[in-house]
């Protein structure tokens, strides 16, 4: 079985801004609510799946372009959620998830942290992108 390197094979677009050049880590959580459904008739613990929820943790080198794309949304959160496109895999065997921004579906930034704690290094950043609703997968 072949393996897929992350380099050049992960993409993230937030509100129309391609963030790839500002990222060196992207971690997507795809969590399904676990519902305990055990009853007195059960012979063992029973659990069933509830609704899924999604969240993306990001980080990378900080820049003015990145800051302008993210910071305003953390100071004045948008009332219409932002469109977010996330993909993994090379062209031809790629999984893409798209949250198209609306009042109920889309993305927003719940945490944004520029960090300059190493005076000999570069400014870096971390952030959390909250995702509302179900994406369209392709």
């Amino acid at each position: 079985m072949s393996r897929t390197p992350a380099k050049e094979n992960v993409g993230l677009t937030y509100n129309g801004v391609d963030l790839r050049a500002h990222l060196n880590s992207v971690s997507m959580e795809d969590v399904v609510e676990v519902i305990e459904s055990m009853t007195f008739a059960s012979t063992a613990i029973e659990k069933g799946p509830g609704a899924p929820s999604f969240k993306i943790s990001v980080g990378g080198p900080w820049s003015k372009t990145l800051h302008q794309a993210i910071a305003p949304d953390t100071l004045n959160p948008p009332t219409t959620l932002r469109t977010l496109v996330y993909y993994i895999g090379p062209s031809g065997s790629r999984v893409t998830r798209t949250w198209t921004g609306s009042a109920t579906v889309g993305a927003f930034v719940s945490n944004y942290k520029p960090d300059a704690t190493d005076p000999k290094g570069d400014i870096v950043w971390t952030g959390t992108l909250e995702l509302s609703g179900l994406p369209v997968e392709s």
Partner: protein
Amino acid sequence: MGVKAWRGRLLVDEFDFSLDTFGASLELAVESEKSDNWQSEAGQLFPTESGAMLTTTGYYTGPDAGDIYQEMKARRGTETPAWVAWLFDTSALGNPAAVLDSAWASNIVLDTPVKGLIKFNAKWEGVAYNGLTLLDGAVVATGNGTVITLPAAGSAGGMAFLLVRAIDGTAVDAQVSIECDSVVGMSTPTDKGAIQFSAVGVYELALTGTIEEYVRVVIDDLGGAAGFTAALVLCVDGVTQ
């Protein structure tokens, strides 16, 4: 190429503590409210309130007025308005800057490693503004400043912060103003307001209405002083914040 951390500037009111600071991080957080509903196949969330906290780390240099630890300690828990600004990249004008208005230190931790230097970190609470630097450094003459390009024009005003760090001589009603225009040549600039000052400190200017894409600071009057050193951060609603 990344942005070097050492190009940052930390301003606490009129004090420039960049030489005694070696780290900073700004945390901008937005509360997430669950907004699940019937017919929703997946969890739904909605952003509500935002908040900010700035953490700075520096070296202990002494207990006198003007020393970083003393000035930060004086603002610990204070209800006296203070301003803390982090200019992210002083290599050029027009780079981002964050200003905490009504700032106060909520937590100061002294770090005294037995074989190391005395250091401390301070956590700052306040109302966050985000903007671009239009001025940072010494001014010795009247005239127009560098034209800065905003990401877009704004229509809802904004706020400008002038942090006057030093005055060479005596200034009486020195004045700087902010202009904007829709063309980079600033051929027909619009005056968005002026700030007058006669002492070091921080001065605010609320801007209203349209702020066009190209902006600059104008040094109108030195107020009789030989010059002054200051930073000006312009924050435009709907554009930079």
